[in-house]
């Protein structure tokens, strides 16, 4: 299948634009996080919401007219708009890449990273609708921008067909599911790290005094991590399962302890441990957050170290 060079070039432009727009959005998010009013009343508001009825059901409650938005808040809203624009570019980059090569656009590490980061950003945007976490945009976008930058430079691979072992409809299924679920797991990873900071600050207010004060409540961060893990973990499981089905057809066995398989198994076990820990007295909170963070680190380790350093059947990175 010949490669359409024009479309491939457009795809690269879209990719670069997405990185640029995300970077800009990051600055705006960080501005809001740094200079916006600290969410002092977060706790009270959470309690009211948890109380169930919501403000509008309290008789006689006067809803105050909206105050003038501060500059920080306007920046935050702009950041969200820019994030959505970046997602558009990002999607366009992947679609054009797919059309240019005539295959699913996740056949090498550059493309894999592009899909992964897209999944991370989309997950965050979706969760932003049900959690008060707009200020965290910067913390999610920083790793995204770093990954995309690495992908676009060190790991970049020109548009080309893939080798015979990858020419299977399972490429579409397995790799997309794994990549999307890994991207989604980036969000709980970030949330858990921030939870650890916030929890340390709650225990000893002098720790991270300036930084943690502006974070959402520990409870919000914990729920965010749990909700996003609960979404991503079954998908990750399905992705590993699809990988096993494909391996049975391509390599002669469904499971062979290939380095990538092993680390995927290890991170699966770690996330399983997270879910159990969160349901076990004495392990909730910081312990669970640590486990989730370890799971996230393992995922990153699996992405880079296993693909680039060790040699195994998954060495398809298309680099070097």
């Amino acid at each position: 299948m010949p490669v359409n060079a024009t479309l491939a070039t457009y795809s690269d432009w879209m990719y670069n634009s997405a990185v640029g727009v995300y970077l800009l959005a990051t600055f705006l998010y960080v501005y809001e996080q740094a200079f916006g009013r600290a969410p002092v009343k977060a706790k009270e508001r959470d309690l009211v919401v948890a109380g169930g009825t919501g403000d509008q059901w309290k008789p006689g409650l006067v809803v105050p007219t909206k105050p003038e938005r501060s500059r920080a808040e306007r920046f935050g809203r702009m950041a969200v708009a820019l994030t959505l624009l970046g997602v558009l570019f990002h999607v366009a980059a992947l679609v054009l890449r797919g059309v240019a090569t005539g295959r699913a656009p996740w056949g090498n590490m550059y493309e894999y990273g592009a899909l992964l980061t897209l999944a991370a950003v989309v997950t965050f945007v979706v969760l932003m609708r049900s959690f008060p976490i707009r200020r965290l945009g910067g913390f999610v976008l920083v790793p995204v921008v770093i990954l995309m930058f690495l992908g676009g430079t060190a790991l970049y691979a020109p548009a080309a067909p893939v080798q015979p072992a990858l020419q299977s409809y399972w490429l579409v299924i397995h790799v997309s599911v794994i990549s999307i679920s890994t991207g989604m797991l980036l969000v709980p990873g970030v949330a858990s790290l921030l939870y650890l900071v916030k929890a340390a600050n709650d225990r000893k207010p002098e720790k991270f005094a300036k930084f943690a004060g502006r974070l959402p409540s520990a409870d919000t961060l914990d729920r965010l991590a749990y909700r996003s893990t609960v979404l991503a973990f079954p998908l990750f499981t399905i992705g590993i399962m699809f990988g096993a089905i494909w391996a049975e057809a391509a390599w002669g066995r469904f499971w062979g302890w290939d380095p990538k398989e092993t680390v995927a198994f290890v991170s699966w076990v770690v996330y399983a441990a997270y879910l159990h820990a969160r349901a076990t007295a004495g392990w909730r909170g910081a312990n669970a957050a640590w486990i989730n963070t370890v799971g996230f680190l393992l995922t990153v380790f699996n992405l880079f170290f296993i693909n680039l350093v060790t040699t195994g059947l998954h060495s398809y990175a298309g680099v070097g």
Partner: protein
Amino acid sequence: MKNALAFLRNTWRGLTAMRTALTLLFLLALGALPGALLPQRSLNSLKVDEFITDNGWWGRLLDKGGFYAVYGSFWFSAIYVLLFVSLVGCLLPRLWEYFSQMRAKPVLTPRNLARMPHHAEAHTDRAVDDVITAARARLKGWRTVEREEADGARTISAERGYLRETGNLVFHFALLGLLVAFALGKMFGYEGQVIVQATGKQFCNSGVFNFDSFRPGLRVDGTQLTPFCVRVNDFHATYLHNGQAESFLANIDYQSGEDLDTGTWKPYPLEVNHPLRTAGDRLYLLGHGYTPKFTVTFPNGATRSAEVQWRPVDPITLLSEGATKFDPPQITDSEERRKNQLAVTGLLAPSAVFDGTLMSSNFPEARKPAVAVDVFRGDLGTDSGRGQSIFSIDQSMVDKGRLAKVARQNLEVGQEIKLDDGTVIRFDGVTDWVSLQVSHDPAQVYVLVFSMLMVAGLGVSLAIRRRRVWVRAVPQQDGRTFIEVGGLARTDQAGYGGEFTGLSRDLLSAEQDKES
């Protein structure tokens, strides 16, 4: 006796506690990691040997600890067996509890609903009975119990989300099933690899001796392999201009089952990702390479041809190495024969380029095949009783002076080497070989079934929340009714708030809905 029982009981309790299970999960994760970081015998035994040599005493220490075969080591087995026991110990009590829960009624309404994590209340003009009737209708789909309290108040206790525990148990039991099926596969399965010339040569899965390498399961002795035969007619590969492979195809014929008796051959295009599945076994196309054909004309006029596979040393350009060995013809005396054996050994380039006399390959396709070979004459050691690689000569015979190099030359197709005694060696060209793998795993279908059950159970148990809601309608002295609603999610509070808000709004304001 009493102490021993107490010890056993405490051990069992300790083992089945959640924190033990968690610890074991971590150990499992930690124990599996060396398998990804250290070379493993099952994947690449050469690399293991290299690693041990490079790392001296601690390389050998790791070997003693089983770190090069992590998944078969005693400590890894210990971890997963303990985890397995712990899992069973956790699951059995939960199963009994599950069955009793299934028949249990929702619990009594707590006296003070305001203490619940979710709570709402209102006053209404409706009568108590109307409130309860409306609530009953709204709580359709919930398991409910209505009770009356001493002061004339009526309550509904409602609970739903029982499927969560169902999913949970399905997941864990499927996990157990998967582990058992996996173990069965390891016991009764086998894997064998064989190289077959892609020039119409045959391979039959009739015994272990037909394979180049064979990895049996623990309960496999190799006597009862599923019979089937394969004939490899040809092999085609296509490449991109940069040498990256684009497609591999081996056209094969096979016979299995009844076809073996009738001698019928069925064609099958064997490709990567498309194994042949026949008679419960799978046949895979794993790799390919080139076989050089050499013809030797001996001084007495006799000729011998040989086609022996050479193995690729460069996976990109398929530059290959190997040794093709000849016995001199018409010599009956074994002493004499062993002085005149020949070996042609060296490199084969499918697309040769020469830098002076130095040959290399610049493309994996056989565009311009050539060999750069040494010819050895003497005793190859093939009769010595010791095994030797088909890809190389026995270097110790050279060291002993019993095998001597008599020529070194580059040959393109059709070119010849003339030895001092008048023997002529001609390079006739190359043909393809394919390496095939036969895999047998009677339990893998069950692994698939159990893993699908796992995913289903996991999805259900994570998506569904076990939650309770209580409604209490209390008649007031002024004739009005005080309604109180409380809610509690039993496993995870996150996300119940939204549902409860909607629910309590409906329960408290049904009257307004009715009027409007």
